[in-house]
């Protein structure tokens, strides 16, 4: 399972690729192999040119794309839970990140469970459910 949140939760002390490789390293994977997979994941989200970048130099959209790469980095990932992943992004970046998330998930044959307030983002999903409070629905 991979998790993406509104905040990308990247760790400042690591480079972009190390942030992506972080979960793999703690799964016990050898560092060179984990970093190789991280670079591949970053390539998948269009961040191959920033693999060694300082996290604080990334834009909001770039940081969220790194978070997407990190959620998808496990080879056997089958479910991505995304909680408002585009809430802090502008319209264009929100669309790009969502498309990327969905296409990469598709490539990994993973399911994405995405919560959003943005109808444009919801429209990109295969299936949508509207969650309302009981008394609102009534």
């Amino acid at each position: 399972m991979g998790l993406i949140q509104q905040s990308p939760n990247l760790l400042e002390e690591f480079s972009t690729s190390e942030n992506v490789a972080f979960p793999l390293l703690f799964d016990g994977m050898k560092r060179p192999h984990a970093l190789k997979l991280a670079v591949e994941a970053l390539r998948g989200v269009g961040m191959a040119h920033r693999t060694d970048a300082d996290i604080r130099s990334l834009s909001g959209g770039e940081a969220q794309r790194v978070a997407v790469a990190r959620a998808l980095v496990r080879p056997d990932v089958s479910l991505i839970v995304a909680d408002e992943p585009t809430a802090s992004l502008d319209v264009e970046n929100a669309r790009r990140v969502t498309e990327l998330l969905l296409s990469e998930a598709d490539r990994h044959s993973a399911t994405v469970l995405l919560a959003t307030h943005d109808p444009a983002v919801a429209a990109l999903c295969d299936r949508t459910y509207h969650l309302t409070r009981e008394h609102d629905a009534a």
Partner: protein
Amino acid sequence: MRTVLRFSAAVAFSHDRRQRWRQVCLLAASFIATFAVLVALGLIALSYTSPLRAGAMLGVPTAAVGDDYPGMSPEGAVAAVVDRGTLAMDRQVPTVWIEPMAGHEDDPTAVPPGLDELPGPGEAVLSPALVAAGYTAEDFGWLSSAAGSGTDGTIGDEGLAAASEPLIFVRPEAGASLGEGGAVTYIATYAESDPNAVYGGNSYDPEVVSVTMMAPGVAIFLVVPSLVLLISSSRARSLVRDERLRFLHTLGVRARTARTTMACETGLLALSGALIAVLAHAVFGRWLTVIPATSIRLFPGDLSLPWWVYLPAVAVTVGCAFFCGALGRLLPRRRSRRPRAGHMIAVAGLVAAVLTVIGSATSWVSPSVASTVFVGGTIGVIIFLPLAVPTLSAAAASSMRTMRSPVLWAAARRLRHDAVHLSRVASVLGVLIVVVSFAVALWGSAAATQAEGSSSHSSGAIAVGWRGDPEGGLEAARDAFAEEGRDVLIVSTVSQDDTDGPMPRLVDVDDCASFVAFFNGDSADVCAPGNGDKLSDFAEANTGMRTPEDTTRLGPDDGLGDDVAIFSREPLSTQNVQRILGFLPALNISLTASDVTAPLPIVQWLVAGALVAFAILGLAIVREIGDRSVEDSGRDVIYQRLGLSLHTSDKLAWTVLLIPLVVSTVTAFFCSLVISYAGEVLQIAKGDTLKLVLVAAISLALPIGAILLTIPARRAAASVNRR
């Protein structure tokens, strides 16, 4: 400026709960720091005034005649005095034997301060501390006198350095005299005091240590630790403060103005704590009489200060807080792999300070300035060590960054990235270890000096001396023991001419048969004419002293001396000898190490200083851990979102904490070793590796224990953050 102040005040005294931790930390720290500075100033002032007050007890000696020193001539004297020491409270209690000169028996100028009149012949006046400890004049073989101006006729405050000062004034019995010359000092008047008088100079240690020891002592053990606590607290976390700073940044406020705002916020909180401390000191300062963990008690009002002294004390603490507040980070750090120049300067400073300490113990440094260089180097270590710990921790982390273990790798990367912030606890720990180790080394030296200063009698004899008639005194002493029914042997001892080096004392046997019989020898054999060597061998075997030979050159009587040696078949305590022979004028009993077991005042002051420093710096460590706990709870949430287990994130947090702690402990321990052993060379301190290891281990256990205690709070905070 008015806007800045109003903005700062609004942040400082915000009702927002997120500002509460910072408010509590800064108020408490500025209170402690200001109070500590005020107490430090009071103690320094006391170390000036106390000897002057107690020095009045010495009176003004008679003028010097010819090449003599003042006090050696009886011309114009109202009294003759001899300073002795009496065993009480497990220490050598200063005892002033006072004998009015003929015609001055009722002369008020012959009465020392603290007395209303001279005690009667054979009477003694005790200080309140001795009476409180349960002693009476009769315990020492004298009669009680109520001639003192204090409560119940004890010595009044005006003649004492401190309330806990043990002191005795005693007057020889009628017909007995202190004699002339030698240890006698002639006093011209007690109505004035001698500005050159050195209280306790030769014979004993006053309760309040001298200003040359007090000033650096309070600086190292009281002021520096409390300022470390204040500096630490000025960095206490507050989300309200962070938000307001971001707000100022968003508005485009200049960095200088933003810094002023931050400094004012910190300064205002510190000012509040400082004013409370001033109020507390003004109201309760008069009643600060107890030096913690010691038997030293001061007089009420001893630590009171004039009102104007409060101003610099407040200025120091508020200024320190203001300065530290302005140093806060305005924007997120820029990443730099290179250590900042300031950090390298700190390491260089630490190395220079350690080399200075080492240098002070070498022959390159003149002995006249070696102590000053040593103290300067030690203060340098205390200043530069906390500044150097982040750089050393970062260096240690760099060496671990290629580790295979992901926990070590991640911890090393985090440390290297933010070494200053993550080494705060370790920095304070380093100061704590050095300061407490320094106190332990000084204490070790003072305790060793005390043990060396007490003689030991391998023969089991008690050496006794007195003033006046030696022969008459010897007979009187024998009679006194006989009246008590004690089977003792009292023999005279003589000193040899020691101009060519130290020479042992000799026993002067006046009655060979009694002497030999006392030790169950054959007097017919040993005392036979021409058997001088045999007697000498016998004496050495039983008393540890030989008898004089024809060629022996005897030395002059030093007047302080061990005039006789008392041997007893049954156990005979120093207290018993004092009680039985108390009538001898200016009785002097040589005390042994087992008699004088009470710690010297300097040792007690050092213990108090070490404890206070440990408590204040321990508080600073606990405060830093409070900040760390909040920050680590945020980290825990991120780690868990990345899939790390609670156990793994705990391991990471512990590793990040322990690396700087270990680096700091090892560095501080090394510095402490250097300071102690260099101090030992200079005879200031005493190196004791085991004690230093214990200090380092206990100090290291403090933050680790505190963190273990904060784990539940961290879990709770992490739970709130997750939600």
